[in-house]
């Protein structure tokens, strides 16, 4: 009978020499398989004297354990080497471009409407809307602009074809008709902002026949011009994301407000860019005033019980101001280069908590 130590050393040597998982498996079968050499030795234990068997079995079991360990260790080593070799063969050039994805954009007008909505929502305003094709009453008459009023000339109005009853639908020249529709729809108090498309017959370097306005209306019992100033100052600070804005309210004229004001904001125009909140220049940004008693009367609200303010401003214009966009006409040209450059990412969702803009 071969010496167990000698056998062990021979088997360990063969295991160490196995160069592949296949030869290693053959060595395992040769050593520990059903007819393996260690297995054969195990079978001899039954015929031994108890004393001798005890000693021999102990040695044989230890040898078997060591061979099993050696087999496992060798197997791990060979597996790792095989995996390493496979991985090495699978190497790719990671500098190659990834699969293409198309990134969409949000138009600056939509983005700015969302920003404005966020600010006014926090001040308790609702968003209201109305039709683009309006009638004379809502666009003009109810807003204290009777026929032949010189103020009608301020609005170069687009008309649709005359109807059989002699009326002519207009493309709304401002978002103010939604004030009328809102006040007709329910009793005061009201707090609304109205973003939307507006139209005037105007087309040059700084005017497009369609543009966007946002209108605000507050009707309550004790609302005065101080609230108007406070609201607009708060809005401008939040919208332009600056600590301080200096605003100037100048007396002006709109048929649907009295008193009326135009509002300028302090800015710096040096260096070809407009910066809000600093500088020595003024920039006109909106028109506003206390709702004219005749407007309230036109919708059946008693001006001795209710009063409030309204304002309107150009969305495209404040988008240009905030984001340094130079040309209004490009807003409506759908030039992909422009949209990708001035547009916003899908998830640039303005919130007051998370910040209006990046």
């Amino acid at each position, binding site marked *: 009978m071969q010496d167990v130590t000698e056998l062990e050393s021979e088997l360990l040597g063969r295991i160490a020499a196995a160069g592949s998982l296949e030869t290693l498996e053959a060595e395992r079968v040769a050593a520990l398989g059903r007819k393996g050499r260690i297995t054969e030795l195990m079978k001899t234990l039954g015929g031994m004297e108890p004393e001798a068997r005890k000693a021999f079995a102990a040695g044989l079991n230890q040898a078997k354990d060591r061979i099993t360990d050696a087999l496992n260790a060798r197997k791990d080593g060979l597996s790792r080497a095989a995996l390493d070799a496979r991985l090495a063969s699978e190497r790719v050039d990671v500098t*190659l*471009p990834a*699969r293409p*994805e*198309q990134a*969409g*954009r*949000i*138009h600056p007008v*939509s983005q700015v409407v*969302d920003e404005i909505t966020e600010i006014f*929502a926090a001040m*308790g*305003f609702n*968003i209201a809307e109305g*039709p683009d*094709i309006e009638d004379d009453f809502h666009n003009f008459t109810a807003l204290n602009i009777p026929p*032949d009023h*010189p*103020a009608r*000339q301020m609005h170069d109005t*687009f008309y*649709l*074809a*005359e109807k059989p009853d002699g009326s002519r*639908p207009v493309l709304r020249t401002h978002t103010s008709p939604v004030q009328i529709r809102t006040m007709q729809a329910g009793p005061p108090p009201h*707090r609304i902002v109205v973003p939307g498309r507006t*139209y005037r017959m105007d*087309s040059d370097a700084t005017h497009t*026949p*369609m543009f966007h306005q946002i209108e605000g209306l507050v009707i*309550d019992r*004790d609302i*005065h*011009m*101080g*609230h108007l100033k*406070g*609201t607009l*100052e*708060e809005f401008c600070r939040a919208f332009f994301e600056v600590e301080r804005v200096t605003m100037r*309210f*100048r*007396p*002006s*004229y709109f048929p649907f407000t*009295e*008193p009326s004001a135009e509002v300028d904001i302090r800015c710096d125009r040096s260096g070809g860019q407009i910066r809000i909140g600093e500088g020595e220049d003024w920039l006109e940004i909106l028109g506003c005033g*206390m709702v004219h*008693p005749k407007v309230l009367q036109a919708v059946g609200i008693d001006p001795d019980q209710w*009063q409030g303010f309204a304002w309107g401003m150009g969305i495209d214009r404040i988008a240009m101001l905030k984001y340094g966009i130079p040309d209004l006409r490009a807003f*409506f040209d*759908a*030039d*992909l*280069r422009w949209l*990708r450059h001035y547009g916003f*990412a*899908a*998830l640039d969702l303005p919130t007051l908590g998370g910040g209006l803009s990046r």
Partner: protein
Amino acid sequence: MKFTLSWLKEHIETTAPLAAIADALTGLGLEVEGITDPAAALSDFVVGHVVKAEQHPNADRLRVCHVDIGAGDPVQVVCGAPNARAGMKGVFARSGLRIPGTGIELKSSAIRGVDSNGMLCSSREMGLSDEHEGIIDLPADAPVGQPFAAVMGLDDPVIEIKLTPNRPDCLGVRGIARDLAAKGLGTLKPLDTTAVPGSFDSPIRVHLDFPGGDTAPCPLFIGRTIRGVKNGPSPDWLQKKLRAIGLRPISVLVDITNLVTYDLGRPLHVFDAAKVKGDIRARFGSKGESLLALDGKTYAVDEEICVIADDAGPESLGGVMGGEHSGCTPDTVDVFIEAALFDPVRTARTGRRLNVNSDARYRFERGVDPEFCAPGMEIATRLILNLCGGEPSHTVVAGAVPDWRRSFYLRPTRVADLGGLDLPLIEQHKTLEKLGFHATHRDGGLDVVPPSWRPDVEGEADLVEEVLRVASYDAIPAVPLPRRPVVAQPAVTLGQRRVRIARRALAARGLVEAVTYSFVARAHAEAFGGGGPDLLLANPISADLDAMRPSILPALIAAAGRNLDRGAEQIALFEVGPEYGDDTPAGQRMAASGIRQGNSGPRHWNDRPRPVDVFDAKADALGLLAQLGIAVDTLQAVAEAPAWYHPGRSGSVKMGPKVLLARFGEIHPAVLAALDVKGPLVGFEVYLDALPLPRQKAGKAKPPLAASDFPAVERDFAFVVDRATPAADVVRAIRSADRALIADAAVFDLYEGAGVPEGKKSVAVSMRLEPKDRTLTEVEIEAVAKKVIAGVAKATGATLRG
């Protein structure tokens, strides 16, 4: 409205600096648009003293002048002006300066062999007038070497203000001065309006001659003849004054009317009395009459238009423009002055209809002071007598000053309640009085009568504005709006929220948002089912923007074309905006539409792009609907689409048989050709207003998750059906075979060709069974499969592929 500082100071006694005046004007609502100092542009042109003037050796008409300019040696200048002479002082321009009147840069040169190093300038060359007979002759005491502009009084800043249409009173310099005086910037000077006594009866009389004795079109007409005047160019002071504000001097008679218009806001007209036949009547025109106006154009008049006529016919358009025939000329000897009032509305309408703009129309349509008719006449008479001589008649008057007096009560706390500014009543009273309002105390407040020149004031709120603007809007303290309690109500409606989600969802799908005009070319509108007469613009800005769009697609397709021309690839655009079905509010609907053009992506080393197809558009439409919270697997896509889509590669997404939620497909090649845009181009339209409301339920809690712990089973089938059978019919039949067990069924292969009979196709579908309460046995699975095969066969005539 333009005026000079010195002109303003003719009406207001003030020491305020220009900057303070400008600030005050803007603060009063008379917004300063610009201040220009004409002297600043002329500061390089200096007073030169001609110390010697000799005959040019080679030219009879030229002189060689030596000009002392106060520094260095006298400069030699060759000058052709007849009045160039030794001892005179003139305006010297050195070489290198640009001459304002000609725009030419002056260079040193030899003129007929004699060096000339500068120029002595004429008034035209300085851009001051048309005068070019000789060079400017400055007074003998003009300081040599100093800028000449100050010597000629050109250092008078010109202020331009932007006037709102409610302030006709400030269309005269005096009205502006009055506002400034009320603001405390000085004292309004008195105005001499005393009557000039006439010495004879005017041979021309005036009549108001409107049907039924109506005087509304021209309530008051004052006239006066002045005989023996001498017309001609105005004196320098008057020419300079008019030029400074951009008016061209014409003749002294005409210049006087312009002066009174701009100084006092009182338009006037002067007729050459010799050319007036009979009396003058304010009346309506009649069909067939016409008038050659002072602008050289002939205007037809009718019964809507107020004319001033003599026995020969219309001589002027009332309140708008005078006529050529009876206008003043240099030879005019007897004049007839008109100071009249015209109805603002009718004047505006006449001006608009005839498309005439004039200083008179501008003022009359905004409202001219009815009380200032007579004083205006007296002031004009005095100016004519002073500048042209002559003998005035008594005035002739038709009509009367209309009643303009009205009174409004100003509550004592109204300025605070509406304007947010606490001001003592006494101060409010003072402000109103300074502006010319008449106020008396009653019940703690004021009864206020606005002045005749303020037609815009029509209620208490206007009085509040008057008090506030004089006190300054800056003085109103800004206060925050009272906060409302925080409630769980969103600021946006469901529809508005869907619009916002649609934009973000489509951008997240890789499409770029465009905003395009609501109007398109009529032909494009027609190609997309619109262009009806009720949605055409009566006055489009251009012929290719004349119809309200029935769909967003044509604008996006056109935009794709423009982008292709710029070299763009893989165009993916969307817009969420209105479409117009008719001209009522209900006809406007909100759509989220998009297009994709070209390939699915750029060329890539590993991922081959393919041309976009109908299924890209379908994915966009369904993907958007899913983002909008619609259960997409309850919807049907059917092969129905309008004519602008490819008839075989387009479809509609419907909820039930009736409700149309979306359309998608390849755009019809003929439509693309008409829009001149290259394909492949696919589009989709999702009608946001058509989406169902979310089911109403109490609370926000979601239903419990019903996930099964038992193994799911997948089985594949290949059915052979008629080529025309929609795959959706097969899938629907599978699902309905066992609604409890079958969780999903999806087409994973489509085959036509060898092995499948002609006219048939093989649809391979994978079915997923999800048992809820047990593990399925083979027998159970087989039973379901049998039901599926039978169901599909029944519904579609399908056979299982061998």
